[in-house]
């Protein structure tokens, strides 16, 4: 049994939430740079340059790339040979410390009905998976209100095929992209039950700019990205080819009578990162 001191986790999380908010992930920055080359709309090109400039300013001044520093969504992979006492309080302490010391915005309300800001951006939302081994990996995805509000869950029919996914993604993107600050990072979860599909759609974003290992899914991702970029929505919704930087799909086995699909529209300020202890 490997024992992990929780104070180490708090320190690392406090740093992670700041780093992640102060600049775009490297892979997303390079995707913006390369898509800028192929963008033909001048205004769109200009806005893509502003995205890069924004990340530079934020990193330099240690201020958030987006004022909505979001809710903290964590995916924990906890090795079964690890002993850690008080993991969730340690993660929340890290969020509290990082958001306070890092001048990040406090955006959590105590209750959906009765509101009232918790003033320290906790509680975080934490999902844990037990894996083999003695390592602890914690992934963080920042979810802003504007983009999270445009999430979709839909139950397709079990006999439907790729076309149904394409149709759902294009219809949803056409309708909601402008609310989310494009260029988008589109995460799609298919399979499982309704809840699993939603989680997968977020994990799909966390995969970053890497194609799915399953070739048939990878082909669908490519084709969806191409179709989304023909919608003409463009950066900031002001026209252009660059409506999305990526479309990622994650799947899971499902019930013989089910075909859930969830779509997470992540924004041009997609922020993620991870720590390993």
């Amino acid at each position, binding site marked *: 049994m490997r024992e992990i001191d929780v104070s180490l986790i708090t320190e690392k999380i406090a740093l992670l939430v700041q780093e992640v908010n102060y600049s775009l992930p490297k892979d997303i920055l390079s995707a913006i740079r390369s898509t800028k080359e192929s963008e033909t709309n001048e205004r769109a090109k200009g806005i893509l340059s502003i*995205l890069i400039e924004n990340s530079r300013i934020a990193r330099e*001044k240690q*201020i958030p790339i987006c004022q*909505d520093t979001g809710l903290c969504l964590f995916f924990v992979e906890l090795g079964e040979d690890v002993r850690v006492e008080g993991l969730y309080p340690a993660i929340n302490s890290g969020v509290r410390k990082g958001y306070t010391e890092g001048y990040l915005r406090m*955006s959590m309300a105590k209750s959906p009905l009765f509101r009232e800001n918790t003033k320290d951006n906790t509680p975080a939302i934490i999902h844990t998976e037990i894996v083999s081994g003695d390592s602890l990996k914690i992934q963080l995805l920042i979810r802003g209100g*504007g983009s999270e509000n445009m999430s979709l869950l839909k139950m397709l029919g079990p006999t439907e095929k790729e076309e149904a996914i394409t149709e759902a993604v294009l219809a949803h993107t056409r309708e909601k992209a402008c*609310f989310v*600050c494009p260029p988008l990072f589109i995460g799609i979860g298919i399979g499982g039950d309704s809840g699993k599909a939603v989680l997968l759609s977020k994990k799909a974003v966390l995969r970053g700019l890497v194609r799915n290992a399953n070739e048939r899914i990878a082909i669908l991702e490519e084709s969806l990205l191409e179709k989304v970029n023909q919608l003409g929505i463009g950066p900031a919704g002001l026209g252009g080819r660059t409506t999305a930087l990526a479309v990622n799909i994650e799947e899971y086995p499902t019930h013989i009578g089910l075909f859930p699909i969830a779509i997470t529209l992540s924004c041009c300020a997609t922020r993620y990162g991870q720590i390993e202890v």
Partner: protein
Amino acid sequence: MKRIIIPEEREALFDLVEGEEILLSGRCYTIRDSACKRLVADNSLPFEMKNEMLYFAGPSPARPGEIIGSCGPTTSSRMEPFFEFFLSKGVSGMIGKGPLSKEAISILAKYKAVYFVGIGGVAAYLSQFIKASTIIAYPELGTEAIHRLILKDLPLYTK
């Protein structure tokens, strides 16, 4: 590209065409969900709204010695239920992000008010165009307090 100073040159706001980019300077007030709700529930105005511009935004906290943290537009459509109230008090227009419903657009037209969109997700960049920030109401709401901002050349687009 037109440069407009508000409220002094507010008449120029009404001569713009759709999709035009402008650089806005002068005074505006931040407002978002909780403050909207408060203001309408209390039916009291913490500032004179006539001829003023509202900016749907909730900035991040300022580092010591800085004017403001990061500040960019939030989704305007969430504030639509409050449009009639604001416009009936004489607001000139609103700044936010994203599209508005047909109903909201017709309320804007009824009061001859304007709507601008800012670029979302680039708040560190946009905060450079804010030259002063003062909390004038509801400090207990944190980021959702009403801030009076002084802008210098904030890039915006007409919708």
